[in-house]
């Protein structure tokens, strides 16, 4: 990483508690433009909360979050403006069940970006076509397979033309045979230069795709580095234990 890259996302000493339980205990992280950072760690280590905080779905208690040079945590920030530039995709898809696929994908561009219906639909159809969902525009989400639903959810986020995409365990709710179609879509986005922060349990995916892997443990980033280093020669004992459990479970 010798080339000079602009920084897409900076987190400085981010703290977040739910009640008396401190979920994030001082997170520092910088993500460059076009970089793919994977967050790994046990359930409850704070991966999802971290992503939700970046999108301001959860207010943070302490620290600073800067996206594309803009301090999201400064007072008076328009959260709606901020969110337009940050896409997030959830584990449970969270598609809108009462809307067709096309309306799911065009809702944000039409209502938040103010695009005309015709333009939003043209862009959405182009997007759906590019990722093999061209004939699904008129279907309701419940008619789709889990893999298709999650791909639609990713395209719904992409339709907003985000500068930063946050993926929160997007394959965890899928049947194993449906995981690969979603991972393939993410791979294409990464190759297209999308800046992404990906919380994942798919270790081989993290190893193949990530520019950098961060191991979260108990609300802090305990170890981070190139995937080869993290997966082959983890320095921290906790990282070694976590990866040993993953290997034992046959997931690496």
């Amino acid at each position, binding site marked *: 990483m010798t080339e000079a890259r602009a920084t897409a996302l900076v987190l400085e000493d981010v703290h977040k508690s739910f009640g008396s339980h401190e979920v994030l205990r001082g997170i520092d992280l910088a993500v460059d433009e076009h970089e793919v950072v994977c967050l790994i760690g046990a359930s409850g280590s704070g991966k999802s909360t971290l992503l939700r905080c970046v*999108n301001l*779905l959860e207010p943070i208690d302490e620290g600073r979050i800067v996206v594309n040079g803009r301090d999201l945590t400064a007072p008076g920030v328009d*959260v*709606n*403006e901020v*969110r*337009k530039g*940050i*896409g*997030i995709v*959830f584990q*449970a898809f*969270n*598609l*809108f*069940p*009462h809307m067709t696929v096309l309306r799911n994908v065009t*809702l*944000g561009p039409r*209502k*938040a*970006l103010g695009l005309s219906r015709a333009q939003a639909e043209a862009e959405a159809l182009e997007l759906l076509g590019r990722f093999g969902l061209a004939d699904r525009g008129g279907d*309701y989400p*419940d*008619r789709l397979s889990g893999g298709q639903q999650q791909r639609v959810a990713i395209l*719904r*986020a992409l339709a*907003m033309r985000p500068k930063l995409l946050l993926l929160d365990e997007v394959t965890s709710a899928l049947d194993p045979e449906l995981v690969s179609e979603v991972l393939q879509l993410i791979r294409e986005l990464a190759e297209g230069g999308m800046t992404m922060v990906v919380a994942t349990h798919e270790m081989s995916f993290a190893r193949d795709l990530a520019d950098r892997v961060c191991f979260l443990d108990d609300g802090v980033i305990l170890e981070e580095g190139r995937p080869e280093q993290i997966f082959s020669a983890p320095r921290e004992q906790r990282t070694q234990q976590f990866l040993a459990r993953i290997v034992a479970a046959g997931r690496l």
Partner: protein
Amino acid sequence: MAKRRRGEGRRGVVIAVVSTVVVFTALGLAIVNAPGWPEVKAQFFDWNEFKSTFPDVLSAFWLNVKLFCIAEVFILPLALLLAIVRSLPGPVFFPLRVLSIAYTDFFRGVPTILVIVTLGFGAPALQLQGIPQSTTFWGVVSLVLVYTAYVSEVYRAGIESVHPSQSAAARSLGLNHLQSVWYVVVPQAVRRVIPPLLNDFIGLQKDTALVGILGAVEAFKQTQIDQAATFNFTSSICAALLFVAITIPLARFTDWLVARDRRRQFAGAPA
């Protein structure tokens, strides 16, 4: 296998028909042969009386139809507004939330007839300029006030039943709170509460009879007029039939609407 099942199905139909005929005939005979039946029949089910009062009750019932249609047109949007106001987040909207809660608590708690009598006789008596003098007008206002409180609670139940991850998804696309409520939460909420909304609409239809107390000649008032002249209550049966004649098709129509929507939206919904 399929043949046998079809045979069993036919046998089932025959059994159902026979047992229904037997039970209803027995019931009918029991009623007709009961002591006092001739008196009951003369008092409530007099055919000549029915023929002579039905046209009057029917034309009076037309006023009920107008009353509940006009009231419902105001109730549905006002109640939704009230429910949305109650769901507004943040400290700025605290006074609005309090107002919304106070309104619902009050008008849900007060007997409808009390509101109708108080406003219907009280408001015109003020003789204020610009305030309508029609008691019927105030009767409709009373129904709107009371039913808006009920219906807003129905909407609120629907709104709160939509999982927060739905509004999180909408907000994450950059929609503001009201946009996420309007485009994502409310459409799902309304679909879920259509049966209880219909419940309250039927309640409203029946409560239009209370406006008769103010003097407007609607179906109930008309039956009272008939009864005062003839001391026969058959006209009440006329009115009852008219009310039921409206609600039953409405209920079936709503069932059909809901089923059609479910078929469209959900895979595996029964066709």
